[in-house]
């Protein structure tokens, strides 16, 4: 996997279970404060940077691209803050929506980069207690999984990533993507089949 360093695999951040910002009333207040005083946006940024970063990084596996996309997401959020209307939708869902759009705009480039990324052994990427062979095997498995995911159409990547990486249920994904829950269910079903097929094909080859 390109651009993956051991440092990235250490502290756990970005899981929904530890992500704040699920209270939409508190979110609305925070947004109002940031609109009145843009310097207050920092609080929103600090709260949501880890989860949005994890979401984007898990989707693409490329640290440099993730950094670029994070900048795009938070700049877009800063500019569009007045466009956020709570309506019961947590702020993090709104940020996921922006992040999803940013990732989808770049997915072809990300897929190309993943395909061209080196599979060579990287001594720095060896985890604690792991031998070189195991490290290489783990890296190859990670790369093939990432490539299989990135080979899917963007709308299928969206639902797989939000569901399996960020632990969002069907209804919450529907709120992020602003589409009916039935559409999410159907996409999730297609995405599972397509991903399984893509991964098997890669493993066979």
């Amino acid at each position: 996997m390109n651009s993956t360093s051991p440092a990235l695999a250490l502290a756990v951040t970005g899981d929904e279970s530890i992500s704040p910002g699920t209270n939409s009333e508190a979110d609305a207040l925070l947004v109002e404060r940031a609109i009145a005083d843009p310097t207050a946006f920092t609080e929103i940024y600090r709260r949501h940077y880890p989860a949005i970063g994890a979401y984007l990084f898990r989707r693409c596996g490329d640290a440099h691209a993730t950094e670029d996309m994070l900048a795009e997401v938070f700049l877009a959020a800063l500019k569009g803050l007045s466009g956020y209307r709570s309506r019961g939708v947590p702020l993090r869902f709104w940020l996921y929506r922006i992040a999803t759009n940013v990732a989808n705009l770049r997915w072809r480039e990300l897929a190309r980069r993943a395909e061209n990324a080196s599979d060579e052994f990287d001594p720095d990427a060896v985890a604690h207690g792991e031998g070189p062979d195991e490290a290489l095997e783990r890296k190859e498995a990670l790369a093939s999984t990432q490539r299989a995911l990135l080979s899917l159409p963007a709308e299928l990547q969206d639902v797989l990533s939000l569901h399996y990486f960020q632990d969002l249920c069907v209804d919450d994904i529907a709120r992020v993507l602003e589409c009916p829950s039935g559409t999410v269910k159907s996409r999730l079903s297609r995405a599972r089949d397509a991903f399984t097929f893509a991964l098997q094909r890669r493993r066979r080859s």
Partner: protein
Amino acid sequence: MNTQPDPVRDALAPLRAQTWDRPEHQRRLERELQERTTMSMRTSLWAKAAMITGIFLVGGVAGAGTLAFVEHYFVEETDLPGDMTHVRITDTSNGHVVMDEDIPDDAGILAIDGGDQGDTLLQVEQVHDQDGAPKGAVVHDAPQPDDH
């Protein structure tokens, strides 16, 4: 949600285990966002100043139709030594600098090229307080073009 075996979940587990912990990048991006916020607050003040200019113009030279046009201007003023002020006016709709000149503090008539909408004249005067000290240039409606 996770009660039944799910091979896709298992297959995606290595990607899910990827974490994002980049404090250096987080700090750098935070600084960038703060800088942009500060810049945007300054720009907002200037945009208000430009809008005020537009409102002045409505009743004077250009007519009501010019208001939207004038609102696109971003006016910057920098005090210079020797009773001069550097005035730069940028059309924010296309980024073109429509005027970039040093003008005398005490008075000046600026002609802004308005393209199809015709030229717009602005009169710039230095405002002095009661002690005669300059307080800064102001822009208001200029005399009718025919007067010149």
